[in-house]
């Protein structure tokens, strides 16, 4: 039988669907009998869903375009300096 500690260790792989079928069945049978792990599994799964859909740390639009410009102008500047300097 799988313990709660083992279940928690494997929780990430279970959520990412990275466990073998038979092992998954064992994890699920632990889940069917353990209320604590049921709550942990359900709430961690919902946490992932919320995080993925939250759009967190997305480029704020006002930053995006100027940032691309800044990067490209620095690169063009560097290239211009390279071209201006005498080659060896």
């Amino acid at each position, binding site marked *: 039988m*799988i313990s709660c500690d083992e279940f*928690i*260790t494997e*929780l*990430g*792989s279970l*959520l*990412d669907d*990275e466990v*073998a*079928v*038979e*092992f998954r069945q*064992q994890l699920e049978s632990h889940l069917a009998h353990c209320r*604590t792990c049921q*709550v*942990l599994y*359900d*709430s*961690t799964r*919902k*946490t*992932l*869903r*919320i*995080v*993925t*859909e*939250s*759009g*967190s*740390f*997305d*480029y704020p639009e006002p*930053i*995006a375009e100027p*940032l*691309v410009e*800044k*990067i*490209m102008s*620095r*690169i*063009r500047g*560097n*290239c211009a300096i390279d071209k201006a300097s005498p080659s060896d």
Partner: protein
Amino acid sequence: MSFLREAEVPDSFGPFVAFRENMGFVPKLFRAQTLLPRVIEAEAQIAGSVLLKPSELSRTQKECILLVVAAAKRNTYCVTAHYQTLRTLGLTEDQLGRMIGDHHAAGLSMSDEALLDFALKLSRKPSSIGKQDIDRLQTLGFSDEMVLEAVLMTALTNFLCSLSTGLGVAPDFAPWQFKDAPNGSAEAFSIKSEFEIPNKSGLYLRAIDRSPSDFAPFAFFREKFGFIPNIFRAQTLRPDVVEAEANAVGTILLTEDVLSRFQKECILLVVSALNLNTYCVAVHCEMLRNLGVSPEKSDQIALDHSLADLSETDKALLDCALKLARRPAEFCAHDIELLRNCGLTDEQILEAIVMTSLTNFLNTLQMGLGTVPDFEPRLIFPLKEVNLSLSSSRPTLEALQREQSAPEDPDAEIVARVQAGETEAFELLVRLHGRKIYRSLTGILGSTDEAEDAVQEAFLKAFTHIGEFEGRSKFSTWLVRIAVNTGVQRLRGRKEIESLEGEDEEFRPRNIQAWQDDPELSYSKEEMRRLIEKEIMKLPVKYRLVLMLRDLEELTTAEAATALGLGLPALKARLVRGRLMLRESLVPYFSKGSTGVTA
């Protein structure tokens, strides 16, 4: 007589009793290893499962594979031994003589000829094996179990040939005299196969899912390595063989009483690199990393150990292993003497020869089964065959890097344009990946303002070094790695680096309250975004970073591990901890009893 000293073992020694029962005598090959009885036990268990145990292929078919593959290698010891066995199984001297010369002239059935063709191809040109070779056998009526046995028999033959050459064992019977040039049919066959492009997609054979909780070998691998290597998962049609292999790994590789684990991993690495085996190189680079060896050092050992930071004794050990694997015909007592002169004992030399042979076994197995690496490989060896028995030098670093390319990088074309001097094309890469880099850096630095600066710095570095990008990984993974390095340098400036590299803390979930069915409905999208950003920022940096790369960037587990320079087990451990910490911090907002905390 052999190159090494022998020791007395009692008549009751288990493997010797079994040999006497099965074969009528104890082969000298095993007597020559009595300095390390544990090694003989492991080998006897593998030979017992693969060759002696009745199975889907007949004993005659398996012995013919051994004979023909050993003959192609001009291995007198194995040819002599198995010629005798086949005689006792009823084959005539004439049949056997023709089979050693050219098995197509031995009057075999079409399917037996195809079986031997397959074994020869796997032994001589392993990287040209593809799914189509397995399909061909299946069309002729061979089951998955039979093909697995053919792969195992070929691997076992490579093991025994390497062992008998390395130990310098004299044949048990009057030695077979090779009459002509090497097996003509095999030469013709190898020329034909130059023009075939192997189909390397995925696993070639059916396997059964087994779990560590009811299959002891898998529990063993999980305990020792932290994962179950795909090469063993692919052989579950024969659980007895996997058990014997697990025992061999435990007895030969993981012991520390003769050679160190580090020395044995190095042998595995250099011989696998010589065999151009990307899978085994990836796995054993990872193993070395777990032993505290940097990825750069293990790459250097794989590509040219003579330039690596190793002791002279270790270099001599690897020279010897490589010579045995590359030029067995030239291997002689002098090579053993060189090792003795370095102060190595006969026990250590014996273990080195066994490790080299075990590597040949595992490499052959992997090529025949088509298993994919357990980790993202840092070095990808080209499919193009190098004829190992003839090549006098190992592939150079430059040659390998030229040929290495990640197969499906969507950015490859744009990157090539920038590399060719089209600066403006770089803007496309900034637009495509800016979002990802911004997020990664926010995750490391914990501040959006500083992230903006760091994004510019990371892209400038990427542009400056784009000429050095060689397609070993996807461009996006390479770029994230640059961003991570940029962020880490800034943390170093703030003296926060310990928090990124230190030991993982214990974390146990404490607040076990059930959550609402649809927590998303409790807050507006904007409130939700602010809440999640605030709580992610509170996570310790090492967990925050892993969680952001995996769950916000949606990198695969292997890509995230590569970008952070972490092993897969370490990455997974941090990921589950990060997710649980974030969950814990969100309980007050989303549990069933929550009273609407302001986000």
